[in-house]
């Protein structure tokens, strides 16, 4: 457009470009939240720029955190004093920060630009711009800070007064081509001196006067009269942020206007001052001559010329938008910090840690009491994000002490539902958790259902069935034996990872249930073998010839009955030593993590400490036990393995297939008639025959060593 060899073409300028450092948005957000509130009056700000010195990219007008007034300062009428240095020449600006996106779009941009341009125009006429030339580069910024989404809409304007008719370019070439060698050397030296002195480094407009001996001096604009009378060669120099070889930078526009207004010059020789690595570079700098042909009327103070200058965004005149959620949204930061923790663990200690499995697993916690609260917290710590808690109780006054998700507030007014309070608490701890609370009672055998309630109990059963179906791991953390029956059956039916934790006064049990009797690993061979073993009292074998591990009820010889009636008060409240619940909960979660990392998952054999070393026990997380029984009175723990019992009232094939055939009808029957289960599984028979002759427990299948015998 403005080639240096074409006479009289319009002078075309490269527009200023903006750069907003993240820190500016942080500071603005904080100002808005803490000080400004809904006040949207204009705020004085400071921008910074410098002569071009980067290879191939222009120097932008930059806003930093310190561009904004500090929150403590009371003066809002004066712009921030210069925090600049030679690479940061301060320039005054005005910020209009709006409160809504609508008001942002509704701003009268034409008028705002005109107002800002008027300030520059006035400064030119009063001479202020000669004293403080940085005023020529005043700028405007409009913005809207959406602090819910951490998105910032903004638009810069660099007001430039339009010469009418526009200036024409007579000549434009590299400064090194324009000056003689001597002159060039002297100009460089003088400019470097100007740039290195703290008095002048931040003054972006200046005069270069070259005497007949080719000695150059750089002077302030206010020395123009003197220079004029000297008669020396005179150039108008300015810090040029632009990098283009054929176009001068934006600051020249207002500079030409100033020269025209103040000194009525028609022909202006200018120097676009650019640097390389901090030193004047006349090969990159440009020298040109412009012709100004405006009318006398244009220069009148009261006739404000037109102004242009809204910044282009990718070639179009639209506002910009930046989203900083990743670095400002506390929830996002919490998520990345949590992830960091786990990743560090994997990096430093456990390269095989499967973080994806942990973050995608869906856990259902039945019971939101002492055990439930602790398990939930431990799961969070392991990076589990999807947690559902089921409990029909309310938070009682004694609960917050032992149930770590509740506080006194949850106990007031009769007490919040535990499931709801737990979800709220988890979300406060870690906002990114996907927690759900279900207020529901678990139907239990031995607690017969009156007819009028049967429908709602059926509904609860179905709901429980669906819940278990839609999760990957289920924790049985309730406070009665019978409440674990139905969940165990449902889990055995669907082969879900099931972990039970149960507390005595000073002892605990933590165990993982084995796979159900009809797991998909089985093929018809196993079916046949099982059909055979139905004759004897042999535990089910799976297709690999191993016995499946037992569930919580496999050790029982009586069916679950109502254990809550006829108990003393303290028994009903399941009083336990406080240390037990955290220990048991922690072990339960670690057990889950172990299962997730074991190649055979729920089909993994139960291991005990000191087991003979074979390949399968060399898992990075250590051994994977079946049952852990601990005693606080002994400060001890032992690991056991129990295999499934054919007479189990919860997971035996008899029971599970009965459920598969008859569904809810079977459940209701079991609930209302607890002896039904014993009859069904043959326990009744078993007990009768046990009293009549000795049963030989050795059988055809290969049992593990004695250590692994079932213990009651």
């Amino acid at each position, binding site marked *: 457009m403005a080639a240096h060899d074409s006479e009289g073409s319009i002078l075309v300028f490269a527009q200023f470009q903006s750069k907003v450092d993240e820190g500016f948005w942080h500071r603005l957000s904080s100002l808005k939240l803490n000080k400004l509130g809904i006040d949207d009056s204009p705020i004085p700000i400071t921008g910074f720029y410098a002569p071009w010195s980067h290879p191939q990219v222009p120097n932008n007008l930059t806003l930093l955190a310190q561009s904004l007034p500090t929150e403590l300062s009371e003066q809002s009428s004066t712009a921030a004093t210069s925090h600049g240095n030679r690479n940061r020449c301060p320039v005054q600006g005005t910020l209009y920060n709006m409160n809504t996106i609508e008001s942002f779009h509704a701003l009268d941009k034409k008028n705002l*630009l005109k107002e800002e341009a008027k300030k520059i125009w006035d400064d030119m006429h009063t001479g202020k711009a000669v004293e403080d030339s940085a005023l020529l580069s005043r700028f405007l910024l409009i913005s809207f800070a959406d602090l819910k989404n951490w998105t910032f809409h903004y638009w810069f304007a660099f007001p430039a007064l339009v010469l009418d008719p526009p200036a024409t370019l007579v000549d434009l070439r590299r400064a090194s081509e324009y000056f003689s060698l001597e002159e060039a050397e002297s100009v460089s030296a003088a400019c470097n001196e100007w740039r290195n002195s703290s008095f002048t480094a931040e003054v972006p407009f200046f005069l270069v006067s070259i005497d007949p001996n080719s000695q150059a001096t750089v002077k302030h604009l206010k020395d123009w009269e003197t220079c004029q009378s000297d008669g020396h060669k005179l150039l108008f120099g300015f810090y040029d942020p632009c990098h283009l070889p054929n176009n001068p930078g934006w600051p020249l526009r207002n500079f030409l206007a100033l020269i025209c207004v103040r000194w009525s010059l028609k022909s202006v020789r200018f120097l676009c001052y650019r640097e390389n690595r901090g030193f004047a570079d006349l090969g990159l700098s440009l020298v040109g001559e412009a012709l100004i042909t405006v009318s006398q009327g244009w220069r009148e103070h009261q006739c404000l010329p037109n102004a242009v200058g809204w910044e282009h965004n990718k070639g179009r005149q639209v506002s910009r938008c930046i989203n900083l959620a990743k670095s400002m949204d506390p929830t996002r930061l919490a998520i990345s910090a949590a992830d960091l923790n786990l*990743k560090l663990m994997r990096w430093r200690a456990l390269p095989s840690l499967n973080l994806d499995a942990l973050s995608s697993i869906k856990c259902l916690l039945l019971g939101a009491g002492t055990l439930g609260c602790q398990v939930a917290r431990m799961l969070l710590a392991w990076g589990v994000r999807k947690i559902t808690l089921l409990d029909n109780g309310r938070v009682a006054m004694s609960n917050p002490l032992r149930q770590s998700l509740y506080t006194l507030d949850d106990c007031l007014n009769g007490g919040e539902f535990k499931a709801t309070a737990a979800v709220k608490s988890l979300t406060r701890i870690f906002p990114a958790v996907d927690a759900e609370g279900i207020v529901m009672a678990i139907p239990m055998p031995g607690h017969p259902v009156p007819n009028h309630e049967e429908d709602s109990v059926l509904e609860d059963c179905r709901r429980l069935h669906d819940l278990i179906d839609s999760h990957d791991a289920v924790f049985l953390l309730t406070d009665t034996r019978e409440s674990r029956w139905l969940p165990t059956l449902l889990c055995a039916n669907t082969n879900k990872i099931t972990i039970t934790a149960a507390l005595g006064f000073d002892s605990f049990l933590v165990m993982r249930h084995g796979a159900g009797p009809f797991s998909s690993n089985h093929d018809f061979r196993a079916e046949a073998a099982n059909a055979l073993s139905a004759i004897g009292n042999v535990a089910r074998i799976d297709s690999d010839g191993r016995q499946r591990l037992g569930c919580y009820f496999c050790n029982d010889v009586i069916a679950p009955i109502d254990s809550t009636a006829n108990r003393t008060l303290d028994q009903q409240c399941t009083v336990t030593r406080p240390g037990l619940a955290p220990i048991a909960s922690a072990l339960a979660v670690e057990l889950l993590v172990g299962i997730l990392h074991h190649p055979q998952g729920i089909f993994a054999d139960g291991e005990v400490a000191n087991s003979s070393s074979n390949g399968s026990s060399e898992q990075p997380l250590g051994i994977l036990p079946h049952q852990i029984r601990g005693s606080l009175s002994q400060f001890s723990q032992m690991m056991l393995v129990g295999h499934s019992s054919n007479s189990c009232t919860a997971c035996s094939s008899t029971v599970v297939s009965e459920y598969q055939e008859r569904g809810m009808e079977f459940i209701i029957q079991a609930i209302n008639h607890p002896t039904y289960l014993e009859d069904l599984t043959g326990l009744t028979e078993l007990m009768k025959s046990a009293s009549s002759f000795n049963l030989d427990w050795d059988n055809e299948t290969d049992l593990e060593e004695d250590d692994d015998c079932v213990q009651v």
Partner: protein
Amino acid sequence: MDILSWDGTLSSGDFRLAACAFMQKWKSVMSAFPPWSWVPCPKQPWGASASHDVEGYLSLENIILSCYAQEEHDEISCPQKEETSCSEKEELIDIATLSNCSKVPYYDLHIIYSASYRVPVLFFRAYYSDGEPLGFNAIEKDLPAHSAKALLDSKWTFITQEEHPYLNRPWFKLHPCGTSEWMKLLFHVDVSVAKNGVTIELYLLSWLSVVGQVVGLRIPLEMLNQP
């Protein structure tokens, strides 16, 4: 410093010394880059402060590290007419619009002393020319593939996003827990060290020659051997 008993770490006072020496050396050899500067910081009032506590960090900002610097920008010769969305009539011929489509990433590098690990830590961040920050994936794409990848996968380096200790904003950093181990190794194999012993002056340069590669910063080896 006796190399055999040295544990690869640096005291906070030594860090200050090392920083000064480092800035000097850098200026003389890495002239293609701007110089590092020391940014003093106010002492944390609650910190376990002794009078010799490090009160600042090294900073190198606004640099271009990627291959972008070598690419030709094709936007230079396309002045465009602007469409207005403010209703004012603009003079179309008067303005050369540089569409700012070129997304050139700039980097800020800070070297900050970690009192708990007793080693320097490299903090960095990247942003485009309009100030928009780059996420980690974009940085990975931007950096020279070969060296960065090797380092990122190694057990010595681990990039995390953590809060900058002075600026209170998230920056990327190279986790320092492996630093003392490989610094020790580095000095063990360096021939000149065997001759002269471990010197504080060389610490930061040697350290940066390793971690710098993660951000594509190459320090020529001969710089390390100069007296």
